[in-house]
């Protein structure tokens, strides 16, 4: 159980409510860490900016990137649907 609670869509800052739709479309549910980060909108925007910046002009095959992201997290992404 997480030590803190996250924000539901209706409680989230208006400028980040669209993100719930993205999450639900991608994963079929709201992500706990993202809901927690909604309490500090800068964190969410920072993450979005980082992902967007790195994904904008991909220099490395997505295959290697996903592999690199999987390796530090044993048993995870890896087996997600």
């Amino acid at each position, binding site marked *: 159980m997480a030590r803190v609670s996250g924000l539901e869509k209706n409680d989230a800052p208006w400028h980040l409510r669209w993100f719930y739709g993205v999450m639900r479309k991608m994963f079929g549910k709201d*992500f706990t*860490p993202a809901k927690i980060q909604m309490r500090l909108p800068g964190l969410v925007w920072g*993450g979005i900016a980082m992902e967007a910046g790195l994904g904008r002009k991909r220099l490395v095959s997505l*295959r290697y990137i996903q*592999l*690199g992201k999987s*390796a*530090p997290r044993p*048993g995870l992404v890896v087996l*997600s649907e």
Partner: protein
Amino acid sequence: MGRKAGLSDDKLRAVLSDDRTSFNDTERLVIELADAMTDTPANVSDDLYARLRKQFSEEQLMQLGAQIAFENYRARWNRIFNVESDNLSRRSQTNRKNHDQPECADVSPALRRISPVQFCNSAILPPVPVISRRHLR
């Protein structure tokens, strides 16, 4: 997401094991880099860097390193609040059924910094413990 990137289930599972025969040389290098960056203290040796440079340009390494580092940031951040699995994976659901005897129970909690059950149940995207595969051997 790994599947969408062209990684087979076997390869994704093999990331957890010592058996790297299913990976090609470049994939093995990427895993080695991720291990080195995830370790505490993080240390990428000259030898590893030299081998990486044979496969990737400096700009490519910057991008790859940033992605791995950002994944580490997320995984470590989740530890503060003890964020657990959202059960997005089949493995996670299986592990919950075997809640009493996690398959990774033989790994020292001191190395994992979390309990075996928590570790095994964290088989999904963000709520994941930061741990180097080296510690699992």
